[in-house]
Protein backbone atom coordinates (compact mmCIF):
# COMPACT_ATOMS: atom_id res chain seq x y z
CA UNK A 1 0.00 0.00 0.00
CA UNK A 2 1.70 3.17 -1.18
CA UNK A 3 1.20 6.38 0.80
CA UNK A 4 2.22 8.45 -2.22
CA UNK A 5 -0.76 7.16 -4.15
CA UNK A 6 -4.11 8.88 -4.06
CA UNK A 7 -5.78 5.49 -4.46
CA UNK A 8 -4.06 2.16 -3.99
CA UNK A 9 -6.00 -0.95 -4.99
CA UNK A 10 -4.45 -4.34 -4.27
CA UNK A 11 -5.93 -7.63 -5.51
CA UNK A 12 -9.50 -6.34 -5.57
CA UNK A 13 -12.15 -8.91 -6.39
CA UNK A 14 -15.90 -8.49 -6.26
CA UNK A 15 -18.41 -11.28 -6.77
CA UNK A 16 -22.17 -10.81 -6.92
CA UNK A 17 -24.63 -13.60 -6.27
CA UNK A 18 -27.47 -13.52 -8.78
CA UNK A 19 -30.70 -15.44 -9.02
CA UNK A 20 -32.29 -17.83 -6.57
CA UNK A 21 -29.47 -20.34 -6.97
CA UNK A 22 -26.93 -17.67 -6.12
CA UNK A 23 -24.86 -18.01 -9.26
CA UNK A 24 -21.59 -16.17 -8.83
CA UNK A 25 -20.95 -13.23 -11.15
CA UNK A 26 -17.44 -11.79 -10.96
CA UNK A 27 -17.61 -8.04 -11.57
CA UNK A 28 -14.01 -7.20 -10.64
CA UNK A 29 -11.24 -9.76 -10.96
CA UNK A 30 -8.01 -9.37 -8.98
CA UNK A 31 -7.57 -5.68 -9.82
CA UNK A 32 -4.41 -3.92 -8.68
CA UNK A 33 -4.00 -0.25 -9.42
CA UNK A 34 -2.01 2.72 -8.17
CA UNK A 35 -3.39 6.17 -8.91
CA UNK A 36 -0.71 8.83 -8.28
CA UNK A 37 -1.48 12.08 -6.49
CA UNK A 38 -1.94 15.34 -8.34
CA UNK A 39 -2.87 13.79 -11.67
CA UNK A 40 -5.98 13.32 -13.76
CA UNK A 41 -6.56 9.58 -14.08
CA UNK A 42 -8.96 8.14 -16.64
CA UNK A 43 -10.67 4.84 -15.86
CA UNK A 44 -12.08 3.46 -19.08
CA UNK A 45 -13.91 0.39 -20.20
CA UNK A 46 -17.10 -0.79 -21.88
CA UNK A 47 -20.42 -0.98 -20.04
CA UNK A 48 -20.37 -3.76 -17.46
CA UNK A 49 -16.58 -3.98 -17.30
CA UNK A 50 -16.50 -3.25 -13.55
CA UNK A 51 -15.58 0.47 -13.52
CA UNK A 52 -18.55 1.68 -11.50
CA UNK A 53 -18.34 -1.33 -9.17
CA UNK A 54 -14.68 -0.50 -8.56
CA UNK A 55 -15.55 3.12 -7.79
CA UNK A 56 -18.35 2.08 -5.43
CA UNK A 57 -15.98 -0.22 -3.56
CA UNK A 58 -13.34 2.52 -3.42
CA UNK A 59 -15.94 4.87 -1.91
CA UNK A 60 -17.08 2.23 0.56
CA UNK A 61 -20.58 2.05 -0.85
CA UNK A 62 -20.37 -1.70 -1.35
CA UNK A 63 -17.99 -4.21 0.26
CA UNK A 64 -15.24 -6.02 -1.65
CA UNK A 65 -15.14 -9.81 -1.77
CA UNK A 66 -11.37 -9.68 -1.32
CA UNK A 67 -8.49 -7.24 -1.67
CA UNK A 68 -7.54 -4.01 -0.01
CA UNK A 69 -7.98 -0.34 -0.92
CA UNK A 70 -6.51 2.80 0.56
CA UNK A 71 -7.37 6.41 -0.18
CA UNK A 72 -4.63 8.97 0.45
CA UNK A 73 -2.94 6.52 2.80
CA UNK A 74 -6.06 5.77 4.88
CA UNK A 75 -8.18 2.64 4.53
CA UNK A 76 -11.12 3.37 2.24
CA UNK A 77 -14.69 3.45 3.61
CA UNK A 78 -13.51 5.33 6.69
CA UNK A 79 -14.83 8.75 7.60
CA UNK A 80 -11.29 10.20 7.30
CA UNK A 81 -10.92 8.93 3.72
CA UNK A 82 -14.35 10.21 2.68
CA UNK A 83 -13.65 13.59 4.24
CA UNK A 84 -10.83 13.99 1.73
CA UNK A 85 -12.80 12.67 -1.24
CA UNK A 86 -15.42 14.27 -3.47
CA UNK A 87 -17.75 12.20 -5.64
CA UNK A 88 -19.97 13.02 -8.58
CA UNK A 89 -22.13 9.96 -9.42
CA UNK A 90 -23.25 9.10 -12.93
CA UNK A 91 -26.47 10.92 -13.91
CA UNK A 92 -26.79 12.62 -10.54
CA UNK A 93 -30.23 13.24 -9.09
CA UNK A 94 -30.79 15.80 -6.37
CA UNK A 95 -33.83 16.97 -4.45
CA UNK A 96 -35.67 19.15 -6.94
CA UNK A 97 -37.16 21.48 -4.35
CA UNK A 98 -33.74 22.68 -3.18
CA UNK A 99 -31.99 25.53 -4.94
CA UNK A 100 -28.48 24.92 -6.22
CA UNK A 101 -27.03 26.98 -3.37
CA UNK A 102 -29.06 25.08 -0.73
CA UNK A 103 -27.86 21.75 -2.16
CA UNK A 104 -24.22 22.78 -2.02
CA UNK A 105 -24.69 24.13 1.55
CA UNK A 106 -26.31 20.83 2.54
CA UNK A 107 -23.43 18.81 1.08
CA UNK A 108 -20.88 21.15 2.66
CA UNK A 109 -22.34 20.53 6.12
CA UNK A 110 -22.49 16.78 5.53
CA UNK A 111 -18.85 16.87 4.43
CA UNK A 112 -17.74 18.54 7.63
CA UNK A 113 -17.25 22.16 6.52
CA UNK A 114 -17.52 24.31 9.69
CA UNK A 115 -20.56 26.60 9.85
CA UNK A 116 -18.46 29.79 9.74
CA UNK A 117 -16.72 28.67 6.53
CA UNK A 118 -19.72 27.31 4.66
CA UNK A 119 -20.56 30.59 2.88
CA UNK A 120 -17.06 31.01 1.48
CA UNK A 121 -16.77 27.33 0.50
CA UNK A 122 -20.16 27.34 -1.23
CA UNK A 123 -19.45 30.49 -3.23
CA UNK A 124 -16.02 29.19 -4.24
CA UNK A 125 -17.33 25.87 -5.54
CA UNK A 126 -20.29 27.53 -7.29
CA UNK A 127 -17.87 29.87 -9.02
CA UNK A 128 -15.58 27.04 -10.12
CA UNK A 129 -18.59 25.17 -11.49
CA UNK A 130 -19.85 28.35 -13.21
CA UNK A 131 -23.15 28.06 -11.36
CA UNK A 132 -23.19 31.32 -9.40
CA UNK A 133 -25.86 32.95 -11.56
CA UNK A 134 -28.23 29.98 -11.43
CA UNK A 135 -27.54 29.12 -7.78
CA UNK A 136 -30.82 30.53 -6.47
CA UNK A 137 -33.00 28.61 -8.91
CA UNK A 138 -34.67 25.32 -7.85
CA UNK A 139 -32.77 22.28 -9.11
CA UNK A 140 -35.96 21.08 -10.82
CA UNK A 141 -35.50 23.85 -13.41
CA UNK A 142 -31.89 22.91 -14.29
CA UNK A 143 -30.75 21.52 -17.64
CA UNK A 144 -28.69 18.33 -17.85
CA UNK A 145 -25.44 20.27 -18.10
CA UNK A 146 -26.35 22.45 -15.12
CA UNK A 147 -27.18 19.34 -13.09
CA UNK A 148 -23.73 17.96 -13.81
CA UNK A 149 -22.11 21.27 -12.90
CA UNK A 150 -24.03 21.61 -9.62
CA UNK A 151 -23.10 17.98 -8.96
CA UNK A 152 -19.49 18.94 -9.45
CA UNK A 153 -19.92 21.90 -7.09
CA UNK A 154 -21.30 19.66 -4.33
CA UNK A 155 -18.42 17.22 -4.88
CA UNK A 156 -15.71 19.84 -4.37
CA UNK A 157 -17.31 22.14 -1.79
CA UNK A 158 -15.26 20.70 1.07
CA UNK A 159 -12.02 21.15 -0.90
CA UNK A 160 -11.19 17.43 -1.19
CA UNK A 161 -7.77 16.22 -2.26
CA UNK A 162 -9.30 13.50 -4.40
CA UNK A 163 -12.27 14.01 -6.73
CA UNK A 164 -13.98 11.03 -8.37
CA UNK A 165 -16.15 11.86 -11.37
CA UNK A 166 -18.34 9.10 -12.82
CA UNK A 167 -19.37 10.01 -16.36
CA UNK A 168 -19.37 13.78 -15.72
CA UNK A 169 -20.20 14.58 -19.33
CA UNK A 170 -22.87 11.92 -19.97
CA UNK A 171 -25.72 13.51 -21.90
CA UNK A 172 -24.08 16.93 -21.87
CA UNK A 173 -23.68 18.85 -25.14
CA UNK A 174 -20.17 19.59 -26.47
CA UNK A 175 -20.17 23.11 -25.02
CA UNK A 176 -21.10 21.89 -21.56
CA UNK A 177 -18.65 19.05 -21.93
CA UNK A 178 -15.85 21.49 -22.77
CA UNK A 179 -16.81 23.58 -19.72
CA UNK A 180 -16.51 20.49 -17.49
CA UNK A 181 -13.13 19.79 -19.12
CA UNK A 182 -11.99 23.30 -18.13
CA UNK A 183 -13.13 22.70 -14.56
CA UNK A 184 -11.11 19.50 -14.41
CA UNK A 185 -8.06 21.38 -15.60
CA UNK A 186 -8.69 24.08 -12.99
CA UNK A 187 -8.81 21.43 -10.26
CA UNK A 188 -5.61 19.85 -11.56
CA UNK A 189 -3.96 23.28 -11.39
CA UNK A 190 -4.90 23.36 -7.69
CA UNK A 191 -3.07 20.06 -7.16
CA UNK A 192 -6.14 17.84 -6.85
CA UNK A 193 -6.17 14.22 -7.91
CA UNK A 194 -9.04 13.51 -10.27
CA UNK A 195 -10.33 10.10 -11.23
CA UNK A 196 -12.47 10.33 -14.34
CA UNK A 197 -14.75 7.61 -15.63
CA UNK A 198 -15.94 8.44 -19.10
CA UNK A 199 -16.91 7.08 -22.50
CA UNK A 200 -15.86 10.29 -24.24
CA UNK A 201 -12.43 9.05 -25.21
CA UNK A 202 -11.47 12.25 -26.98
CA UNK A 203 -12.02 14.22 -23.81
CA UNK A 204 -10.19 11.64 -21.71
CA UNK A 205 -7.24 11.85 -24.09
CA UNK A 206 -7.21 15.63 -23.75
CA UNK A 207 -7.51 15.99 -19.98
CA UNK A 208 -5.97 12.83 -18.51
CA UNK A 209 -2.35 12.30 -17.51
CA UNK A 210 -2.76 8.55 -17.06
CA UNK A 211 -5.38 6.02 -18.12
CA UNK A 212 -6.38 2.51 -17.16
CA UNK A 213 -8.59 0.34 -19.32
CA UNK A 214 -10.71 -2.40 -17.80
CA UNK A 215 -12.42 -5.24 -19.61
CA UNK A 216 -14.49 -8.05 -18.07
CA UNK A 217 -13.44 -6.96 -14.60
CA UNK A 218 -9.73 -7.05 -15.34
CA UNK A 219 -7.16 -4.37 -15.91
CA UNK A 220 -5.91 -4.71 -19.47
CA UNK A 221 -3.73 -1.61 -19.71
CA UNK A 222 -2.45 1.19 -17.48
CA UNK A 223 0.04 3.96 -18.09
CA UNK A 224 0.69 7.53 -19.13
CA UNK A 225 -1.54 8.66 -21.98
CA UNK A 226 1.49 9.60 -24.09
CA UNK A 227 3.11 6.22 -23.50
CA UNK A 228 0.11 4.02 -24.13
CA UNK A 229 -0.82 5.85 -27.29
CA UNK A 230 2.67 5.78 -28.80
CA UNK A 231 3.28 2.94 -31.29
CA UNK A 232 6.91 2.18 -30.59
CA UNK A 233 7.33 -0.40 -33.34
CA UNK A 234 6.81 2.32 -35.92
CA UNK A 235 8.20 5.77 -36.49
CA UNK A 236 6.83 8.82 -38.07
CA UNK A 237 9.52 10.60 -39.99
CA UNK A 238 8.31 14.10 -40.11
CA UNK A 239 11.24 15.34 -42.08
CA UNK A 240 14.19 12.94 -41.92
CA UNK A 241 15.63 9.46 -41.14
CA UNK A 242 16.10 7.07 -38.13
CA UNK A 243 19.78 6.05 -37.84
CA UNK A 244 22.43 8.72 -37.42
CA UNK A 245 24.05 7.76 -40.70
CA UNK A 246 20.77 7.59 -42.50
CA UNK A 247 19.73 10.77 -40.80
CA UNK A 248 22.92 12.49 -41.86
CA UNK A 249 22.47 11.18 -45.37
CA UNK A 250 18.82 12.10 -45.32
CA UNK A 251 19.53 15.54 -43.86
CA UNK A 252 22.14 16.08 -46.56
CA UNK A 253 19.78 14.78 -49.19
CA UNK A 254 16.92 16.83 -47.80
CA UNK A 255 19.16 19.84 -47.43
CA UNK A 256 20.10 19.39 -51.05
CA UNK A 257 16.43 19.73 -51.78
CA UNK A 258 16.04 22.65 -49.36
CA UNK A 259 14.41 20.61 -46.51
CA UNK A 260 15.42 20.51 -42.80
CA UNK A 261 14.87 17.90 -40.05
CA UNK A 262 12.83 19.54 -37.30
CA UNK A 263 11.83 16.58 -35.12
CA UNK A 264 11.75 12.82 -34.89
CA UNK A 265 8.79 11.41 -33.02
CA UNK A 266 6.68 8.32 -32.65
CA UNK A 267 3.39 8.07 -34.49
CA UNK A 268 0.25 8.04 -32.37
CA UNK A 269 -2.96 6.17 -32.71
CA UNK A 270 -6.10 7.58 -31.15
CA UNK A 271 -7.22 6.53 -27.70
CA UNK A 272 -10.49 5.48 -29.28
CA UNK A 273 -8.71 3.00 -31.59
CA UNK A 274 -6.71 1.59 -28.69
CA UNK A 275 -9.85 1.26 -26.59
CA UNK A 276 -11.72 -0.57 -29.34
CA UNK A 277 -8.79 -2.89 -29.97
CA UNK A 278 -8.48 -3.83 -26.29
CA UNK A 279 -12.13 -4.42 -25.55
CA UNK A 280 -13.28 -5.97 -28.83
CA UNK A 281 -16.26 -8.23 -28.41
CA UNK A 282 -16.89 -7.57 -24.72
CA UNK A 283 -19.95 -5.47 -25.48
CA UNK A 284 -21.66 -8.52 -26.96
CA UNK A 285 -20.62 -10.81 -24.11
Amino acid sequence: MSTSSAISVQGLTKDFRVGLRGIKLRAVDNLSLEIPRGQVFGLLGPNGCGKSTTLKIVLGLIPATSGSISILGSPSATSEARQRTGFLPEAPYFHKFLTGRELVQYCARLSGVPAEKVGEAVEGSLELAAMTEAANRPIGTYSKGMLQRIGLAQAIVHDPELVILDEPTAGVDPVGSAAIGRMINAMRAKGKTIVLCSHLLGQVEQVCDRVAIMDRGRLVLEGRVDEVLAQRDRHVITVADLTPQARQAAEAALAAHGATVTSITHPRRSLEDLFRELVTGSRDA
Partner: protein
Amino acid sequence: MNARLTRTSWIARITFLEAIRQRFFAFLLVLSAVMVVSSVSLRFMDFGHSELKFVADFAFGGMFLFGSVLALVMTAQLFFAEIENRTALTLLAKPLSRTEFLLGKFLGTWAVLGVFVFSLAFLQGVILWSRTQELIVLAAETGRVAPDFSVSGLASFAVLQWLRLGVVAAMVLMVSAVARTFLFTVIVGAMAIVAGQLQWLAQEALLKPSDASVVTKSLLWISSRVIPQPPAV
Protein backbone atom coordinates in the same frame (compact mmCIF):
# COMPACT_ATOMS: atom_id res chain seq x y z
CA MET B 1 -22.04 21.23 17.42
CA ASN B 2 -20.77 17.67 17.28
CA ALA B 3 -20.06 16.61 13.67
CA ARG B 4 -22.27 13.52 13.90
CA LEU B 5 -25.13 15.58 15.31
CA THR B 6 -24.69 18.18 12.57
CA ARG B 7 -24.85 15.59 9.80
CA THR B 8 -27.85 13.84 11.37
CA SER B 9 -29.72 17.13 11.82
CA TRP B 10 -29.11 18.09 8.17
CA ILE B 11 -30.44 14.75 6.93
CA ALA B 12 -33.47 15.27 9.21
CA ARG B 13 -33.96 18.82 7.94
CA ILE B 14 -33.95 17.84 4.26
CA THR B 15 -36.15 14.80 4.96
CA PHE B 16 -38.64 17.07 6.73
CA LEU B 17 -38.68 19.56 3.83
CA GLU B 18 -39.17 16.74 1.34
CA ALA B 19 -41.96 15.08 3.32
CA ILE B 20 -43.88 18.25 4.13
CA ARG B 21 -44.17 18.95 0.37
CA GLN B 22 -45.74 15.58 -0.38
CA ARG B 23 -49.33 15.58 -1.64
CA PHE B 24 -49.91 12.39 0.32
CA PHE B 25 -49.18 14.24 3.56
CA ALA B 26 -51.52 17.10 2.62
CA PHE B 27 -54.23 14.64 1.59
CA LEU B 28 -54.12 12.69 4.86
CA LEU B 29 -53.91 15.88 6.91
CA VAL B 30 -57.05 17.24 5.24
CA LEU B 31 -58.82 13.88 5.55
CA SER B 32 -57.97 13.67 9.25
CA ALA B 33 -59.01 17.28 9.81
CA VAL B 34 -62.38 16.53 8.21
CA MET B 35 -62.72 13.54 10.54
CA VAL B 36 -61.89 15.65 13.60
CA VAL B 37 -64.39 18.32 12.58
CA SER B 38 -67.06 15.74 11.76
CA SER B 39 -66.72 14.22 15.24
CA VAL B 40 -68.98 17.01 16.56
CA SER B 41 -71.70 16.13 14.08
CA LEU B 42 -71.49 12.46 15.03
CA ARG B 43 -71.72 13.01 18.80
CA PHE B 44 -75.26 11.56 18.88
CA MET B 45 -73.51 8.16 18.42
CA ASP B 46 -71.78 8.46 21.80
CA PHE B 47 -73.13 5.09 23.03
CA GLY B 48 -73.81 6.45 26.48
CA HIS B 49 -70.40 8.00 27.07
CA SER B 50 -70.02 11.66 27.78
CA GLU B 51 -70.19 13.74 24.64
CA LEU B 52 -66.77 15.35 24.99
CA LYS B 53 -65.12 11.96 25.57
CA PHE B 54 -66.74 10.59 22.44
CA VAL B 55 -65.54 13.57 20.40
CA ALA B 56 -61.99 13.17 21.77
CA ASP B 57 -61.92 9.38 21.25
CA PHE B 58 -63.28 9.67 17.72
CA ALA B 59 -60.75 12.34 16.78
CA PHE B 60 -57.81 10.51 18.34
CA GLY B 61 -58.90 7.27 16.65
CA GLY B 62 -58.83 9.01 13.27
CA MET B 63 -55.54 10.63 14.14
CA PHE B 64 -53.97 7.26 14.91
CA LEU B 65 -55.50 5.50 11.90
CA PHE B 66 -54.45 8.09 9.33
CA GLY B 67 -51.26 8.86 11.24
CA SER B 68 -50.30 5.17 11.05
CA VAL B 69 -50.97 5.09 7.31
CA LEU B 70 -48.91 8.27 6.95
CA ALA B 71 -46.05 6.92 9.11
CA LEU B 72 -46.06 3.63 7.23
CA VAL B 73 -46.22 4.89 3.65
CA MET B 74 -44.27 8.12 4.07
CA THR B 75 -41.36 6.53 5.95
CA ALA B 76 -41.00 3.76 3.38
CA GLN B 77 -41.44 6.18 0.48
CA LEU B 78 -38.83 8.64 1.80
CA PHE B 79 -36.34 5.82 2.32
CA PHE B 80 -36.81 4.10 -1.04
CA ALA B 81 -36.90 7.42 -2.94
CA GLU B 82 -33.31 7.97 -1.78
CA ILE B 83 -32.31 4.53 -3.05
CA GLU B 84 -34.22 4.59 -6.35
CA ASN B 85 -33.23 8.16 -7.22
CA ARG B 86 -29.66 7.34 -6.17
CA THR B 87 -29.41 10.39 -3.92
CA ALA B 88 -28.26 7.94 -1.24
CA LEU B 89 -25.23 7.22 -3.42
CA THR B 90 -24.20 10.88 -3.29
CA LEU B 91 -24.88 11.17 0.43
CA LEU B 92 -23.24 7.94 1.59
CA ALA B 93 -20.07 8.79 -0.36
CA LYS B 94 -19.66 11.64 2.14
CA PRO B 95 -18.38 11.13 5.69
CA LEU B 96 -21.85 10.08 6.73
CA SER B 97 -22.45 6.76 8.45
CA ARG B 98 -25.46 4.61 7.70
CA THR B 99 -26.59 5.06 11.30
CA GLU B 100 -26.55 8.84 10.93
CA PHE B 101 -28.45 8.54 7.65
CA LEU B 102 -31.16 6.32 9.17
CA LEU B 103 -31.41 8.40 12.33
CA GLY B 104 -31.71 11.58 10.27
CA LYS B 105 -34.42 9.98 8.15
CA PHE B 106 -36.27 8.93 11.29
CA LEU B 107 -36.05 12.34 12.95
CA GLY B 108 -37.20 14.13 9.78
CA THR B 109 -40.15 11.77 9.41
CA TRP B 110 -41.02 12.03 13.08
CA ALA B 111 -40.97 15.82 12.86
CA VAL B 112 -43.51 15.66 10.01
CA LEU B 113 -45.65 13.30 12.10
CA GLY B 114 -45.39 15.91 14.87
CA VAL B 115 -46.77 18.56 12.51
CA PHE B 116 -49.58 16.15 11.61
CA VAL B 117 -50.47 15.27 15.21
CA PHE B 118 -50.17 18.73 16.74
CA SER B 119 -52.07 20.44 13.90
CA LEU B 120 -54.94 18.02 14.40
CA ALA B 121 -54.67 18.28 18.19
CA PHE B 122 -54.94 22.08 17.90
CA LEU B 123 -58.01 21.73 15.71
CA GLN B 124 -59.44 19.20 18.13
CA GLY B 125 -58.70 21.55 21.04
CA VAL B 126 -60.59 24.37 19.33
CA ILE B 127 -63.58 22.11 18.71
CA LEU B 128 -63.58 20.69 22.25
CA TRP B 129 -63.19 24.12 23.81
CA SER B 130 -66.02 25.67 21.79
CA ARG B 131 -68.31 22.72 22.48
CA THR B 132 -67.40 22.90 26.19
CA GLN B 133 -68.44 26.56 26.25
CA GLU B 134 -71.81 25.61 24.71
CA LEU B 135 -72.25 22.80 27.24
CA ILE B 136 -71.35 25.09 30.16
CA VAL B 137 -74.10 27.52 29.10
CA LEU B 138 -76.49 24.59 28.67
CA ALA B 139 -75.54 23.19 32.09
CA ALA B 140 -76.15 26.56 33.75
CA GLU B 141 -79.62 26.69 32.16
CA THR B 142 -80.55 23.14 33.15
CA GLY B 143 -78.79 23.06 36.51
CA ARG B 144 -76.51 20.17 35.56
CA VAL B 145 -72.83 19.84 36.40
CA ALA B 146 -70.72 21.78 33.86
CA PRO B 147 -68.25 19.69 31.84
CA ASP B 148 -64.55 20.39 32.07
CA PHE B 149 -61.99 20.52 29.27
CA SER B 150 -58.30 20.15 30.12
CA VAL B 151 -55.82 21.66 27.64
CA SER B 152 -52.91 19.92 29.37
CA GLY B 153 -54.76 16.61 29.13
CA LEU B 154 -55.25 17.08 25.40
CA ALA B 155 -51.57 18.05 25.00
CA SER B 156 -50.53 14.90 26.89
CA PHE B 157 -52.68 12.75 24.62
CA ALA B 158 -51.20 14.44 21.56
CA VAL B 159 -47.65 13.80 22.80
CA LEU B 160 -48.52 10.15 23.40
CA GLN B 161 -49.97 9.89 19.87
CA TRP B 162 -46.80 11.42 18.51
CA LEU B 163 -44.67 8.90 20.43
CA ARG B 164 -46.90 6.11 19.19
CA LEU B 165 -46.47 7.16 15.56
CA GLY B 166 -42.74 7.50 16.21
CA VAL B 167 -42.65 3.82 17.18
CA VAL B 168 -44.50 2.97 13.94
CA ALA B 169 -42.05 5.05 11.86
CA ALA B 170 -39.07 3.42 13.59
CA MET B 171 -40.46 -0.06 12.89
CA VAL B 172 -41.00 0.78 9.21
CA LEU B 173 -37.52 2.26 8.91
CA MET B 174 -36.04 -0.86 10.47
CA VAL B 175 -37.86 -3.00 7.89
CA SER B 176 -36.78 -0.61 5.08
CA ALA B 177 -33.14 -1.01 6.04
CA VAL B 178 -33.25 -4.74 5.30
CA ALA B 179 -36.01 -4.93 2.66
CA ARG B 180 -35.47 -4.60 -1.06
CA THR B 181 -38.78 -3.17 -2.20
CA PHE B 182 -41.23 -0.50 -1.13
CA LEU B 183 -44.19 -2.88 -1.34
CA PHE B 184 -42.57 -5.51 0.87
CA THR B 185 -41.76 -2.82 3.44
CA VAL B 186 -45.32 -1.49 3.49
CA ILE B 187 -46.83 -4.97 3.85
CA VAL B 188 -44.44 -6.08 6.60
CA GLY B 189 -44.78 -2.70 8.33
CA ALA B 190 -48.60 -2.97 8.26
CA MET B 191 -48.40 -6.49 9.70
CA ALA B 192 -46.10 -5.23 12.46
CA ILE B 193 -48.58 -2.46 13.33
CA VAL B 194 -51.43 -4.98 13.52
CA ALA B 195 -49.27 -7.38 15.56
CA GLY B 196 -48.34 -4.52 17.89
CA GLN B 197 -52.00 -3.61 18.36
CA LEU B 198 -52.89 -7.21 19.18
CA GLN B 199 -49.87 -7.82 21.36
CA TRP B 200 -51.94 -8.01 24.52
CA LEU B 201 -53.45 -11.26 23.21
CA ALA B 202 -49.99 -12.84 23.00
CA GLN B 203 -49.10 -11.56 26.46
CA GLU B 204 -52.25 -13.02 27.98
CA ALA B 205 -51.73 -16.36 26.26
CA LEU B 206 -48.13 -16.50 27.39
CA LEU B 207 -48.94 -15.72 31.02
CA LYS B 208 -51.73 -18.33 31.20
CA PRO B 209 -50.51 -21.76 32.30
CA SER B 210 -51.06 -24.13 29.40
CA ASP B 211 -49.66 -27.28 27.82
CA ALA B 212 -48.87 -25.51 24.53
CA SER B 213 -45.89 -26.76 22.57
CA VAL B 214 -42.45 -25.18 22.83
CA VAL B 215 -42.86 -23.78 19.32
CA THR B 216 -46.14 -22.09 20.21
CA LYS B 217 -44.70 -20.70 23.43
CA SER B 218 -41.65 -19.44 21.56
CA LEU B 219 -43.82 -17.67 18.99
CA LEU B 220 -45.89 -16.12 21.77
CA TRP B 221 -42.74 -15.00 23.55
CA ILE B 222 -41.41 -13.41 20.35
CA SER B 223 -44.77 -11.73 19.69
CA SER B 224 -45.03 -10.31 23.18
CA ARG B 225 -41.39 -9.33 23.72
CA VAL B 226 -39.83 -8.55 20.36
CA ILE B 227 -42.55 -6.86 18.31
CA PRO B 228 -42.82 -3.30 19.62
CA GLN B 229 -46.17 -2.25 20.95
CA PRO B 230 -47.06 1.35 20.28
CA PRO B 231 -47.96 2.98 23.63
CA ALA B 232 -51.70 2.88 24.20
CA VAL B 233 -53.55 6.19 24.45
